[in-house]
């Protein structure tokens, strides 16, 4: 091929005019991927970038000569490491997969067989393809475990998949892929399901093994910041068609195609919020005031606290018209907090007031006005709208229930408010896209004319571009209607772009409570800092910087005593832990910039 010139070696992977089709049930075949072509040179890492429905995973699987049930490779040529993938008979394909080309799946929790110990599965490719004897394979697996910084590499293989965390399984899956020393490794969104702090460890592990093993890679992802860390070149896909191809640097700094530019814009952090002048000086009554809320399960102990706590003494005042952000990783209790405020999660102690009046724990016991003025917008738009009720009927019911006029004009106005055409009123939820559903969901909350809207991860299930538009809409509504928002998220970018104040939750504790302006200024709680540092940035050396920063900062910390008592909730993971952290509850103090921080260390220590 002319592009590579005469002196260059031929590409290790060459895809030409690939056509993939799929069908649902007995319906017609429709194209999934149409005319995709790209090359990958030896030892190169190519990113396949695309949002949901772009066909990126289908392309990646086609490289292995595999198509999911209902799909097939309808045309084109795929050459991988000298093999003509589309022409190989089944037996040859079997000896090709797992030996020449290996696959790392998105959800390692589901991709490992729950009934077999992990080591058996990790070394299975080596035994299947007779690459090495069992004992050698085990030794190599342990070597790879060590390389990827897995805990207790010698014994971790004896465990089962449900006993390990997602980040650990993802690294084990990488070891399983690399056990045979394949020439090509496919990474299919391997860190998408992980928390940001875990993602760093996994990304670093991938980079380490790539440096040591030197394979050719294809990295499938929707996250441009991850692309910047991992890939040399990138192909941007949309609806099964290549939009743009180029080096990572070019794609991320000077995208040529309009779609890539939109994708990049949606990924770039930006402030959408015009900050509200909300203060808790005491003159204004908070619209919502959560005080020392304790939520738990398993009954209460002799000290009056639950046996297992989900939320410990969380306090959160929300001022009228402001956007309060709550951030934390999975399991930090943020959804529980939202559910308690919404009246569907009983609490053990503490209290919540709404516009100065106490909120009953159970929704049934709250007044009609309270129910109306406090609205919840939940995460999964598929579950939020009644599939058997048209959009118009859904909105109409809220209006009539609250005794408001429910004519077509009013419904049109509500739809217009969330930037949807009024013709949508006759449609049913299954006919809408994810973004449209989430807009209808917002409209339903707004139909009640709320004072406060609880948003539980409302952008988490959406593609980046669609999510960015929803955030824009939120801020427009905030300006137009002056309502307060409680915005729960795990995404620091989204949080920064819309919030006035932020509460950081860790293991059910509010470790920091800060105005957004103070978020940029030290000092911060060690967990907040870690969270901030973990959000991938679009520059290529971000990961290298973070890792080196972490390594030089890691002074020996006193070993954690086994008994976990009343100490700081973050002590076990804290890099700057001191002895007292394990035994005493940390005090709350205010930083010069205005952040409330719960930590035993002082402002100077943390700066």
């Amino acid at each position, binding site marked *: 091929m002319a592009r590579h010139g005469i002196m260059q070696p031929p590409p290790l992977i060459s895809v030409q005019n690939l056509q993939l089709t799929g069908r649902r049930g007995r319906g017609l075949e429709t194209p999934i991927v149409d005319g995709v072509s790209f090359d990958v040179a030896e030892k190169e890492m190519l990113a396949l970038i695309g949002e949901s429905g772009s066909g990126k995973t289908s392309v990646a699987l086609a490289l292995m000569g595999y198509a999911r049930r209902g799909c097939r490779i309808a045309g084109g040529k795929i050459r991988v490491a000298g093999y003509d993938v589309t022409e190989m008979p089944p037996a040859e394909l079997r000896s090709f997969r797992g030996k020449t080309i290996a696959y790392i799946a998105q959800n390692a929790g589901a991709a490992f067989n729950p009934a077999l110990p992990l080591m058996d599965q990790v070394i*299975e490719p080596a035994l299947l393809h007779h690459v090495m004897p069992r004992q050698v394979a085990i030794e190599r697996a342990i070597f790879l475990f060590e390389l990827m910084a897995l805990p207790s590499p010698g014994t971790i293989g004896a465990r089962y998949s449900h006993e390990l965390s997602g980040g650990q399984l993802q690294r084990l899956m990488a070891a399983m892929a690399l056990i045979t020393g394949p020439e090509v490794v496919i990474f299919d969104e391997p860190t998408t399901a992980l928390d940001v702090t875990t993602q760093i460890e996994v990304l670093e592990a991938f980079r380490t093994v790539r440096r040591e093993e030197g394979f050719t890679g294809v990295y499938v992802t929707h996250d441009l910041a991850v692309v910047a860390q991992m890939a040399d070149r990138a192909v941007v896909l949309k609806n099964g068609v290549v939009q743009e191809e180029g080096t990572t640097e070019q794609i991320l700094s000077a995208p040529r195609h309009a779609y890539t530019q939109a994708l990049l814009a949606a990924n770039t952090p930006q402030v959408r919020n015009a900050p509200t002048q909300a203060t808790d000086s005491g003159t204004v009554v908070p619209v919502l005031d959560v005080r020392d809320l304790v939520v738990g399960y398993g009954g209460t102990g002799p000290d009056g606290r639950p046996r297992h706590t989900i939320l410990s003494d969380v306090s959160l005042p929300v001022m009228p018209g402001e956007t309060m952000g709550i951030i934390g990783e999975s399991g930090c209790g943020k959804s529980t907090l939202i559910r308690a405020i919404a009246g569907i999660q009983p609490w053990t102690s503490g209290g919540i007031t709404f516009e100065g009046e106490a909120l009953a724990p159970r929704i049934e016991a709250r007044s009609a006005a309270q129910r109306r003025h406090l609205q919840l917008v939940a995460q999964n738009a598929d579950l939020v709208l009644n599939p058997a009720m048209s959009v118009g009927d859904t909105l109409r019911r809220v209006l009539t229930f609250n005794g408001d006029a429910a004519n077509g004009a009013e419904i049109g106005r509500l739809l217009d408010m969330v930037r949807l055409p009024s013709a949508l009123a006759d449609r049913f939820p299954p006919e809408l896209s994810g973004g449209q559903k989430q807009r209808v969901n917002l409209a339903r909350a707004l139909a009640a004319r709320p004072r406060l809207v609880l948003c539980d991860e409302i952008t988490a299930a959406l593609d980046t571009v669609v999510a960015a538009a929803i955030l824009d809409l939120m801020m427009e509504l905030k300006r137009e209607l002056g309502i307060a928002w409680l915005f729960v998220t795990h995404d620091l970018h989204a949080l920064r772009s819309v919030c006035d104040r932020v509460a950081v939750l860790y293991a059910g504790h509010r470790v920091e409570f800060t105005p957004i302006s103070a978020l940029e200024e030290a000092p911060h709680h060690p967990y907040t800092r870690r969270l901030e540092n973990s959000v991938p940035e679009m520059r290529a050396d971000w990961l290298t910087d973070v890792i080196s920063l972490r390594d030089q900062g890691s002074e020996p910390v006193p070993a954690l005593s086994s008994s976990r008592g009343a100490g700081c909730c973050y002590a076990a993971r804290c890099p700057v832990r001191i002895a007292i952290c394990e035994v005493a509850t940390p005090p709350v103090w205010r930083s010069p910039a205005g952040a409330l921080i719960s930590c035993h260390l002082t402002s100077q220590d943390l700066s």
Partner: protein
Amino acid sequence: MTMNAALIRALLRLVGASLVSLVFVTVAVFFITAVLPGDVADALLGQAATPDAVSALRHSLNLDKPVLVRFVIWVTGLLHGDFGVSLVSHRPVLAMASERLIHSLLLAGVTALFAVPVALLLGTTAAIFRNTLFDRAVSLLTLCIVSVPEFLVATLAVFIFSVQLHLLPALASISDIHSIGSFLASFSMPVTTLACVIVGQMSRMTRAVMIDALGSSWVEMAVLKGASPAHIILRHVIPNVIAPLFNVIALSLSYLLGGVVIVESVFHYPGIASLMVDSVAARDIPLVQICALIFCAAYLFLTTLADIVALLSSQRRHAA
């Protein structure tokens, strides 16, 4: 340690629940069959039912006492192994039922021996070759079998094997068996019929279980590792489907109980089910009671067994 304690607690809860069900069943059987006392005496005496004779019989059967008193008498009897005597033959019902039970167990055992492996194989192959002609044929055939009442399968079997082909005798009778040949001949019709019914039911459930497992991410992963279909089935799928398959087997065998009733009646097989049908027709209440209790106990035993296997297999993984 705590794991074992939790396991034992869970097991005890399972066994306890089925014991509660057994009590429920016992009480239900008694009260349903005991509510119309006059009827029984009238029915037994038939033409000879003078008022005196009826009241004498009612007295001898304790039918003139309140229902609760009779229940206490009956339960006390049960606990002492006294299940009452037949109203028709005046023999102890326990002896009558137990000699018939052996025959029924023999029939069910031989059927299970054939049906279980065939059904598992059929369901598994249908799942592997999903949507092929083979799968569709198996699906259609098994759907037909599970749709129609059991007696229809039995009638069809008689029609084909006895009437048309003259291969097998239509009636089974244990007393006529003198050689292995005649044993096989008289046994084969009931067993074939019953096996058809069970295979239909079980292979459909097996197929569903296997399709569920074959559609999982870990099977796709195994394919992408380059494993052969045989390797995937043996190494990856089997360990995961043992528990659900045991469940399928136990459920199917409990389903077999219903089939036994029909098959024994159609082929005049002297088992406990035909005894029960006869006793229902004759309204011989003590006999109905013991037969119902035996059937329900067997049914509960099988469903509890299925639950226990499912529990143990999930525990085994967590304990490792």
